[in-house]
């Protein structure tokens, strides 16, 4: 594929990250995770009643390539809060267990409007979820 198309994927990813306070890039969907690490991360977000957008990286391998290039993080899932990479399943799990994740998400949710806009990111299929 052309560089231009890959750049448009990267741009769409960057916009999705900036437009969604809490966004999870995962394998599969929150209802049907396609990987145990993605499933565990979704379960943690849902247990904290977190509203989050989810992007399935599986439909197009370039989504994962461009995401990892952008985030400098090699694995999926990747959780972003307030535009910053929080981490993958290991870090999310560790922060959940220490209470840091609830603190971070609580702080972000207070700053988030009750009904965040649904991002239209074109090539990405983004679902907004209430856990």
């Amino acid at each position, binding site marked *: 594929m052309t560089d231009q198309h890959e750049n448009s994927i990267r741009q769409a990813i960057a916009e999705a990250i900036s437009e969604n306070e809490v966004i999870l890039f995962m394998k599969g969907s929150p209802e049907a995770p396609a990987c145990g690490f993605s499933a565990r991360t979704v379960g943690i977000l849902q247990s904290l009643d977190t509203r989050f957008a989810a992007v399935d990286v599986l439909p197009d391998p370039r989504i994962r390539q461009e995401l*990892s290039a952008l985030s400098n993080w090699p694995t999926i899932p990747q959780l972003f809060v307030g535009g910053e990479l929080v981490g993958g399943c290991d870090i999310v799990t560790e922060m959940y267990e220490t209470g840091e994740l609830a603190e971070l998400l609580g702080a972000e949710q207070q700053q988030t409007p009750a009904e965040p806009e649904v991002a239209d990111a074109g090539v990405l299929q983004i679902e907004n979820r209430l856990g």
Partner: protein
Amino acid sequence: MPDAATLKARIEAAIPGARAEVDDWTGGGDHFRATVVADAFAGLSRIQQHRLVYEIFGDEIGGPIHALSLTTLAP
């Protein structure tokens, strides 16, 4: 195929003073679990600590190493 002992040796070689414990999580030679303790992690965020380890393996993560689950600690 990577094995746990090789991963341990590579982590300890790449991060001076690091001690790593690596398990083959599933026995399949592609899902690993590592605990790494290193002075180099002091003062770094978890993200930065994990990146130091992931960078050792580059494109192998997501390739032959399907998953490398990490716990990182500064001593």
